[in-house]
């Protein structure tokens, strides 16, 4: 049984367009799940709905088998970490962290014990008397995390908590967030538009597009086997080739594109005689120079180099083929020249069929 379940939830602002429509999401206890998607796809809306900042027009939100749909924010006991920290500017660090405990009428002596413990956990001991304006961005976000954690929340919600920090700090902080989350075993939902960030800290990632979850899987499954064209594009697949499925046997597919035959593994639910996009990452394709009269191996295709771009350590090539332009990475030295004829081979376990989107 899931800890969190959203069933057919519909949300709109000012009662206009539905941002989420019949939206469903289930999260298991103790997991960190991320919502990943382009700006404006409804990640924050989903998070605010779960937090209780927004009301659903329709649908049901269940938490621990209880109907939470109409429970107000302040009774939910969920911690929320905001993108802009949302620390109270008129209170010092100690008072910020103590805020939730005071609302719970925790005795003063215990507050004086628990606040420093929390600050210790986020590596900010000794900062009790500082005001928010006297802290750096990273320190502010640590205070915000401590403030959300000190109430022992049943659920922790993060809305792009690192996007206002610089790159190095972002990496350090996401490791920190994951460490704390696992140390406390606290169920968390993490919103970001940064793929690497989500993949590195999550048990599961939900890829969202226009208010819909297109795929929810572990990061490694999503990375290797996207289900839709949108997901593939979003996580860095660059090649999209039209294929028709000729046959499907024992988990192997025979594909046809422009009279060339290709093989692929069956990773998604595909139907025979239907057409799909075959997607493959530029680094998964093998490239070698074309040699006249050499017998071509399976899953390979002839092409000629059109554009070459230096990426540092390797080159990225755009190759003209019968199947259209294909992007390939290669670290061969010396690099291929423009116009040079090459053979590309697409490994069958790297070629993934997805729904056209």
């Amino acid at each position, binding site marked *: 049984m899931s800890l969190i379940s959203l069933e057919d939830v519909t949300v709109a602002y000012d009662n206009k367009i539905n941002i989420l429509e019949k939206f469903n999401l289930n999260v298991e206890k103790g997991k960190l799940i991320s919502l990943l998607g382009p700006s404006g796809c409804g990640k924050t809306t989903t998070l605010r709905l779960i*937090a*209780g*900042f927004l009301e659903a027009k329709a649908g049901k939100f269940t938490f621990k088998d209880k109907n939470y749909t109409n429970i*107000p*924010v*302040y*009774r*939910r*006991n*969920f*911690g*929320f970490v*905001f993108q*802009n920290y*949302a*620390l*109270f*500017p*008129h209170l010092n660090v100690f008072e910020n962290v103590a*805020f*939730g405990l005071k*609302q*719970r009428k925790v005795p003063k002596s215990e507050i004086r014990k628990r606040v420093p413990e929390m600050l210790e956990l986020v590596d900010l001991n000794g900062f009790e008397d500082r*005001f928010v*304006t006297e802290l750096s961005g990273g320190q502010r976000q640590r205070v915000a995390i401590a*403030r*959300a954690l000190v*109430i022992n929340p049943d659920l922790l919600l993060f809305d792009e908590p690192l996007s206002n920090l610089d790159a190095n700090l972002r990496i350090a902080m996401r490791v920190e967030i994951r460490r704390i989350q696992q140390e406390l075993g606290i169920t968390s939902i993490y919103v970001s538009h940064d793929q690497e960030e989500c993949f590195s800290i999550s048990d599961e990632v939900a890829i969202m597009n226009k208010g819909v979850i297109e795929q929810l899987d572990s990061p490694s499954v999503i990375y290797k086997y996207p289900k839709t064209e949108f997901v593939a594009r979003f996580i860095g697949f660059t090649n999209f080739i039209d294929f028709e499925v000729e046959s499907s046997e024992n988990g192997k597919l025979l594909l046809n594109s422009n009279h060339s035959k290709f093989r692929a593994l069956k990773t998604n639910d595909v139907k025979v005689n239907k057409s799909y996009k075959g997607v493959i990452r530029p680094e998964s394709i093998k490239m070698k120079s074309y040699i006249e009269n050499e017998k071509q191996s399976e899953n390979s295709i002839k092409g000629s180099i059109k554009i070459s771009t230096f990426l540092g350590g390797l080159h990225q090539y755009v190759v003209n083929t019968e199947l259209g332009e294909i992007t390939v990475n290669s670290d061969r030295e010396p690099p291929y020249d423009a116009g040079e004829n090459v053979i590309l081979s697409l490994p069958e376990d790297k070629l993934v069929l997805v729904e056209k989107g």
Partner: protein
Amino acid sequence: MNKKYFYLLLLPCFLFLLIFMVIPILVTTLSSFYLDGRITLEGYRSFLTDHYFLNILFRTLRISLLTTTICIILGFPVAYYVSKLNVKLKFIFIAAAVFPLLISPVVRSFSWMAILGREGIFNTLLKKIGIINEPIQFLYTELAIVIGLVHLFLPLMIIALIGVMENIDYDLVKAAQSLGASRFTSFIKIVFPLSVPGLVVGSVLVFVGSLTAYTTPQLLGGSRRVMSTLLYQQSLTLNNWYTASIIATIMIVATFIIIGIMNKIAQKLNPKG
């Protein structure tokens, strides 16, 4: 531009204020310490031991304090509501709040006379409903002055409060609620302290405005004098410029004391404000 010449921009305004404000205030204040060719506090002693004068001083402070308090109580919810509206509605509400400022205090006081008088709208209404048999004395009481002043100064309080409240990040309120604070508690613990700078500006404007208002207490207060009407009477009716300068000095000092107290309160409520 050279910093030295930058200060020249202040010069015209500075000269204006110096000639028409600072010097007259100094002359007025200093002359209150000067009687029969010697420097003395005698004038203050007799003012502050005279029951008639003291009554007026305390009445003035009482009326100003009450007016300010009522403006805060009425203005706060309105300002909070308006500050959360979208730009267009906000503009309409602010315009509506400012609009009364365009009507002269004289006209407004006369309207209140028509409403609060013995045969005024209010008494007639109460008699019609049968709550009273004899008209109640509203006009020419302290209450009438307070009502008139609240009407006069509420827009200032509202505008001062909207100014700070619309800059409060609403995520702070959400954060407070997610930490267990109810709507009311989050207002008291977050919105209120962060509004203190606006509250101070609004309160100073209203308090000082009430302290120095002339038309409203004159028309609605009848024989109940306040410092400003007393000042007028002493100077222009009785030609007693010495007492008048003492009254003026006391009003100036009172103004500064009030501003000082407000700032102290502000620092207590919001140390970072």
